[in-house]
């Protein structure tokens, strides 16, 4: 039992140390998180229609190829979204649009949020 507790304690210490060392810009990370949450909240209230043929979403939290698939599935449910291409390295999601009705910025943001990720910016060409 003593060995078990010691090993668990050691594992927790290593984990905490890893988090702290990896987060050398921890304050910046907190700031980024607050900024991202604030940007998302703002976009969720934005009922402006995306009128162009495409839009580029900057998304945070897409950490793997399978995450991209989840985002695809949710965005393709939004009326007006015809295609989705994702650049994981840049966190860019390129959405192709056509037909009526066109989606609002809030609808695109909500779809990505439902997939489990955070939109911080939507740009139209």
């Amino acid at each position, binding site marked *: *039992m003593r*060995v*078990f507790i010691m*090993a*668990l304690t050691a*594992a*927790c210490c*290593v*984990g905490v140390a*890893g*988090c702290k060392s*990896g*987060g050398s810009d921890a304050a910046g*990370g907190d700031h*980024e*998180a607050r900024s*991202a*949450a604030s940007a998302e909240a703002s976009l969720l209230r934005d009922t402006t229609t995306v009128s162009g043929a495409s839009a580029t979403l*900057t*998304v*945070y*939290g*897409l*950490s*793997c*190829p*399978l*995450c*991209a*698939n*989840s985002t695809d*599935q*949710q965005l393709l449910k939004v009326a007006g979204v015809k295609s989705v*291409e994702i*650049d*994981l*390295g*840049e*966190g860019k999601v390129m959405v192709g649009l056509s037909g009526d009705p066109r989606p609002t910025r809030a609808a695109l943001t909500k779809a990505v*949020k*439902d*997939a*489990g*990720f*955070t939109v911080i910016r939507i740009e139209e060409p």
Partner: protein
Amino acid sequence: MIPFTTRLRASVAACTIMLIAGWSPARAQEPMFSGAATQPSPEHFTLRTQVEYTRLRGDPTPARREVEDVRTITTLTYGLARDLAFSLTAPVAYQRIDALGTGASDHRFGVGDATLLVRWRAWREDTGPIDTFRVALLGGVGLPTPGEIAGDGFNPIVGAVATWIRGRHGFNVGAQYTVTTGAKHDPLFPGETLADYLRCDGSYLFRLAPEQYGAGSEAAVYASVEVNGRYETSGEGQILISPGILYEAQTFALEFAVQLPAWQDVSRRPESRFSVLFGVRFLF
């Protein structure tokens, strides 16, 4: 008594069916022997199937059992809401048990205890294109199933798991406590005696390739190592080390891991020698 060859064929058939059933959306970047704070989006489900071979030796009981266990572990998870999902896990196992103390041999095949869990994502903080920190709380129950493999009680479960991904590095830390109300008559694995059961897991995943994601990135390879703690309130415990490798594409994932004991203190069941696990996941 069902002949051994019939049971073996049934095991292979069950494994094949479970693998085919696993061809569906899967959650990403998860360690093999423990959990992560990830879940499917609303109205989507995932199926994860793993095949695990375990060898147990060094039974301190008079029966001196030596055990080979082959099982498929299939987990169906459904997204109820943005931050709420439930999952059902059901193992199908074949066990060969040689009791050196009595000279008896036995084979068992059947469905093990099912586990129903509700998962609530309590915290999500995305701090960069790849970086994220998530915490999920778990609650549920272990369900008895008919057959030789299963126990006979409803066992409440509570737990929590956190996932932290930063660049190429991923950490998962989780704990799960099971209140055991029904034991198995012949316990072989942690949590099968009448004592309550605590499992604590930590894992680290490192993305081997690609070094940096780009527009053309369609797959990733990770090396992983897990520390799996298993403790029963009777005083028995194990710490296991599990290195593995994970390949993820956009439409499928493959995982392979080995689990080795680092420390064991058991008196009511055999010690673990090793486990080998293979999992496959396909995306529709």
